[in-house]
């Protein structure tokens, strides 16, 4: 493979990082949730506005962290608007990684899948009934062991 194929910071990733889709909060959100990824200290908050007929009318994200977590959140919110809840629930982790594009090592998949995890839980978290349970305590379905330790 050429070196460029190993560079995960392709232009479309950097574009989403620098010029994100719907970064911010949604005043009339119907559903919302937040999660973090201890590896990079990434935090993602997602606000959703669901329509009466079960579609994602608007999706917004906010947060901080590495470029992969932030750019992937932008790609995800852009991709799901207009989709039905069933379609979004069926949107798999593999499809999320494919949407991101560049191939990621298991550790960095955690960064990419953070917004996907938060989205899946946000659909079950109506605003007003907001519980800030720590999604980070749940085992992510993808990704390798933590890089954090050195002894």
């Amino acid at each position, binding site marked *: 493979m050429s070196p460029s194929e190993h560079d995960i*910071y392709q232009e479309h990733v950097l574009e989403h990082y620098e*010029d994100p889709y719907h970064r911010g909060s949604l005043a009339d959100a119907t559903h919302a949730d937040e999660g973090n990824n201890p590896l990079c200290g990434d935090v993602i908050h997602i606000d959703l506005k669901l329509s009466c007929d079960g579609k994602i009318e608007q999706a917004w994200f906010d947060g901080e962290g590495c470029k992969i977590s932030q750019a992937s959140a932008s790609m995800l919110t852009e991709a799901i608007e207009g989709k039905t809840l069933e379609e979004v629930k069926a949107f798999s982790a593999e499809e999320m990684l494919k949407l991101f594009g560049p191939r990621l090592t298991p550790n960095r998949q955690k960064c990419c899948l953070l917004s996907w995890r938060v989205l899946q839980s946000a659909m079950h978290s109506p605003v007003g009934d907001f519980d800030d349970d720590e999604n980070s305590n749940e085992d992510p379905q993808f990704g390798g062991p933590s890089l954090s330790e*050195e002894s």
Partner: protein
Amino acid sequence: MPEPFNLTDSCNHTADLSAFDAERYRSDFPILKRHVSSGEPLAFLDNAASSQRPSVVIDAMADCYESYYANVHRGIHTLSEESTDRYEQARATTARFLNAAEEKEIIFTAGCTAAINTVARSWGEANLGRGDTILLTIAEHHANIVPWHQLAERIGVNVVFIPINEAFDIADEVVLEYLDRYRPKLFAFTAASNTLGTEFPVKRWTEFAHAAGATVLVDAAQAAPHSVVDVQDWGVDFLAFSGHKVCGPTGIGVLYGKAEHLDAMPAFLGGGGMIDRVTTSGFSSAALPDKFEAGTPPIVEAIGLEAAIKYLSKIGLDTIHQYERSIGAYADAGLRNLEGVRIIGPTPNRKSGIVSFLIDHAHAHDTAQSLDSLGIAVRAGHHCTMPLHDAIGATATTRASFYFYNTFAEADRLIEAVKSTRAKFAPSGRKRRGRTVS
């Protein structure tokens, strides 16, 4: 080769350095020939996390397994006697490496972490009580923090941290002030910070601590691989280091303790090998060093560690230290000069081969990932120093850590790679291309 950085204080032997040929040693390390997944040749600059191994270490371990391996201190047969001889020979070599007064002051453990935990559990529980203070520096890595927090939970000791100043250093006056104010029973500090690179004056601080009535434990995980350690000259009570950072195997570390302390301490882990006699009603401990080596010890690892120590000693720890100061200073200066790059650490005269940094607009992990695609292995994260990162105000930093087998050409590659990474990640008015929704 670029001109080595001219250091003024303890390292003005540039004439000797020009004779130091890192290339000559690289061929001893088979792994350094490899390329990374992008196809670029490997520049391994993650030595503070773990070093690589020369063939003599790998061969010594293979030779043990192939020629004379058996359990030690147990069997009355040829292989067990040969293995026991070699295991004890490794202890003798390690004692000379640290200039310990007696071989029995060297305890083989599972690692530096296990060594510090042994002191916390055995010496700590026997000698400390509620309200006593353990003094640390904020630059400690977790292995020299968490065992003391655990002791605090169990017996109610206080854990106090000496802060670093704006120069990423700790002045003697501050150490004296903390010793005087808190009158700690133990002062446990690192000889060199794994994150900042700062080298602390172990002998002087040990004198200060003893004058204030404190026992001293030194975490030498980042010192033993890079400079001469002399436990008698330093006067320390305890010292710990890891095998895998001195070109040795994983799974072994060393606890040095003055015989008077180790003799008085209760055994920590219980099991075979550490007993004199066991009955249905109790046990009596073996003498040193067996008392602290319960179970089958890291036999082959000790033999590998001995080969590593001999290898490093042949090059000379003073020579290694001088070279690392030189290449570290060169990399530090190169990165410090780059716009948008901030060095997290003291100026080169206070450190050796560690250069931690942050690039504007780039998360430390993104920086490390980008450098990896260019073949450069660095560490990104909190480096097991979360309290220190809290103090610095960063969640993560990127760290390049050099060893004697790294070349100035690799330092140049690092500087160039940081420069191009910074350029790539700098905001440049990029616009997201619109999606066509199906």
